């Protein structure tokens, strides 16, 4: 690979992206903090609560907050399931039939949990109504749910009254959608459209090509969905090829905008956190860990794809299988590392065809627990849970009761965090193990050997971490995978959320302690290094045995 014609542009585009995110960081982080702390309500917002039968003045305990969240998510799953099953009888279906029960269950859970795992091809399964009224709506609200949980946890740390109240779910949900996600999506949709992303209610109709062949002209409200798909770190493509489809991502500029959108909220939330706990240095420390590990993942993936090791890339001369020419190797790698590190799961290239090292790196990005910087909201609450682990470890070393942001981390608190850390690895490893011993699981594997194990493990890592990207060689549209991956997504989303809210409630019930001489400073480089190591050690110890049998074996063979 040439230095000037490949490596320099590869690094420069990362620099350009980071510069754009840095510009947005402070004002946007402050804006989000204001959205979730202001008590002022406009007339429209008040009318919205009246119309939906919600009392916005109730400050909920964690259990009530959780019940609201689960009640909302429950009707979301049921509503999307019904839309999917009944598609054939509804307007704008493009003549497509309803989905089978296992398939509808899978996408209903998938979109409600912000995973957007897709067993189906959008263009041949979902009509315009299901895409808009089903998928687009869940893209917004599932992201707002993630934001709400993160904000509730931050309130647990920030509030010193000790009354155990963590906010109002309905207000947080409404504000996340209407003040953050909707305005930005609308603007981004216009820019994407100007770049060539389609936005029409036309059906897919046949036309005659230049050489007399037949090709279908595609229609669909794509730009409106594409914008929130990236901004909400959802990732469910309108079309099967997702963000590598020219109608979802027509050129390198729309591609940069899409990467920017998927990193925008997760990278600005540490600022929001710092402002809400009234100590901006705490936000910088969290951002430092997120940014450092994200940069390492981007560089590793880029290096692997540019180097192009492996039989097929060597035979072709470069790892261009499953990549688009308008993006090339480096821009595909930047997207891949960012989409897996943010729990988005959109793809602008096929991860299954990446080099062993590149595919292994993006798999590892998900196994880190989606915290660098992670999905909308989920990244921040995941990282704060790991920060509690880091504080606890440091406390053990010096023999003092650990505390974080003025709140004591006692036995109950650390139990909740430990359970949180165990949920997704259990789902990933149990799901993978079942699928490589049961016949219906083995049937889906496209390639034998280590790559087959990587395919299955990638699927469960993607589902349990609510990512949604795939090593798409695995045939997962079967009832076995639809039901099992649906369960992994459901448990991988709501069990951790319940534990986070329970912790938020316990923290909010404690009065804040003033920092003393024995308090571990959590804004210094030492803590940044400790937290970074905690992230790596927790994921590493859990997954390295399984990774050695999959991508590591493949990269070494």
């Amino acid at each position, binding site marked *: 690979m040439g230095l000037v014609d490949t490596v320099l542009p590869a690094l420069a585009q990362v620099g350009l992206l980071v510069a754009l995110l840095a510009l947005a960081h402070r004002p946007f982080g402050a804006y989000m903090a204001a959205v979730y702390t202001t008590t002022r309500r406009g007339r429209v917002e008040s009318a919205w609560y009246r119309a939906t039968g919600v009392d916005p003045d109730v400050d909920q305990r964690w259990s009530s907050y959780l019940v609201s969240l689960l009640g909302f998510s429950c009707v979301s799953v049921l509503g999307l399931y019904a839309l999917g099953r009944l598609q054939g009888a509804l307007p704008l279906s493009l003549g497509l039939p309803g989905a089978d029960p296992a398939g509808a269950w899978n996408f209903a859970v998938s979109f409600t949990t912000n995973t957007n795992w897709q067993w189906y091809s959008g263009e041949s399964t979902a009509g315009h109504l299901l895409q808009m009224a089903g998928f687009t709506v869940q893209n917004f609200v599932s992201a707002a749910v993630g934001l709400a949980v993160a904000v509730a946890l931050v309130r647990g740390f920030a509030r010193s009254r000790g009354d155990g109240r963590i906010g109002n779910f309905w207000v947080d949900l409404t504000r996340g959608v209407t003040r953050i996600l909707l305005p930005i999506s609308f603007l981004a949709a*216009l820019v994407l459209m100007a770049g060539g992303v389609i936005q029409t209610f036309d059906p897919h109709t046949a036309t005659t090509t230049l050489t007399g062949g037949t090709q279908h002209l595609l229609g669909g409200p794509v730009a409106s969905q594409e914008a929130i798909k990236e901004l909400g770190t959802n990732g469910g493509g309108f079309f099967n090829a997702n963000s590598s489809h020219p109608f979802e991502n027509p050129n390198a500029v729309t591609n940069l905008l899409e990467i920017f959108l998927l990193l925008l909220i997760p990278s600005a939330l540490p600022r929001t956190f710092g402002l809400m706990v009234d100590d901006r240095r705490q936000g910088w420390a969290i951002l430092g860990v997120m940014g450092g590990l994200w940069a390492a993942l981007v560089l590793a993936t880029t290096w692997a794809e540019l180097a192009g090791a492996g039989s*097929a890339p060597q035979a072709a001369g470069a790892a261009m299988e499953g990549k688009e020419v308008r993006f090339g190797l480096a821009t595909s790698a930047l997207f891949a590392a960012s989409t897996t590190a943010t729990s988005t799961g959109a793809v602008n290239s*096929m991860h299954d065809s990446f080099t062993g090292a590149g595919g292994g790196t993006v798999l590892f990005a998900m196994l880190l627990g989606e915290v660098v910087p992670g999905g909308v909201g989920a990244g921040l609450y995941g990282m704060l849970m790991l920060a509690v682990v880091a504080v606890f470890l440091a406390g053990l070393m010096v023999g003092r009761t650990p505390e974080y942001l003025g709140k004591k981390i006692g036995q109950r608190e650390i139990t909740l965090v430990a359970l949180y850390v165990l949920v997704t690895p259990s789902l990933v490893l149990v799901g993978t193990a079942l699928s490589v011993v049961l016949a219906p699981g083995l049937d889906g594997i496209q390639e034998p050997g280590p790559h087959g194990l990587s395919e299955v493990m990638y699927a469960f890592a993607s589902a349990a971490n609510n990512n949604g990207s795939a090593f798409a060689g695995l045939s997962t549209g079967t009832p076995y995978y639809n039901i099992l991956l649906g369960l992994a997504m459901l448990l991988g989303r709501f069990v951790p959320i319940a534990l986070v809210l329970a912790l938020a409630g316990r923290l909010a019930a404690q009065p804040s302690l003033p920092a003393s001489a024995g308090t571990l400073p959590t804004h210094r480089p030492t803590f940044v290094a400790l937290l970074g190591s905690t992230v790596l050690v927790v994921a590493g110890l859990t997954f390295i045995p399984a990774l050695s049998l999959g991508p590591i074996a493949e990269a070494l063979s």
Partner: protein
Amino acid sequence: MPSTTTTARGAVAFARHTLSGLQMLIAFTVVLGLLYPVAVTAVGQLAMPWQANGSLVRADGSRAEGREDGEVVGSLLMAQGFEGPEWFHPRPSAADYDTLASGGSNLGPESPELVAAIEERRASVAADNGVPVSAVPADAVTASSSGLDPHISPAYARLQVERVASARGLPVEQVEALVREHSAARALGVLGDPRVHVLSLNLELDALG
């Protein structure tokens, strides 16, 4: 064990929250699922109908605002499967250039099937263009991610110039100039890869007769 009254109270609370959830979901579906996409569509159809309708073109290369136009031969964003010596060929497509089946091969880096496909494509591209197999670039022998990649690398375009020129009886320099015209550098100097647009190049060749 929670007492029955606690359980009952919990069930009532859940039902009440779920009812609020249902009302809010319906309201969100109206705003986000109908009003928002309709508003974006309205702006698109009024302000940038060509882009919003899929960058459609006629046989003479001119833009068609919508498919009702009648003379539409395709979208500038979608690859078409050109075959024969008189056309520039696109990249291999795992979807066979079918826009209703977008996607890649998803074959892994050690897949024997993929290695065999690459070798076969390499031999066939080399034979078609009368060049040694070592001259065939990577994008000519690999399937794209979407199966609808409208571009090829400048190297793959250069490889095809002589074949196309001789099949059409055009001077090589003229075809080379057309390739340059339909080439693009990296966006902003750093984003993506340099590329040549196959359909617009072939449209212009076709117009020459």
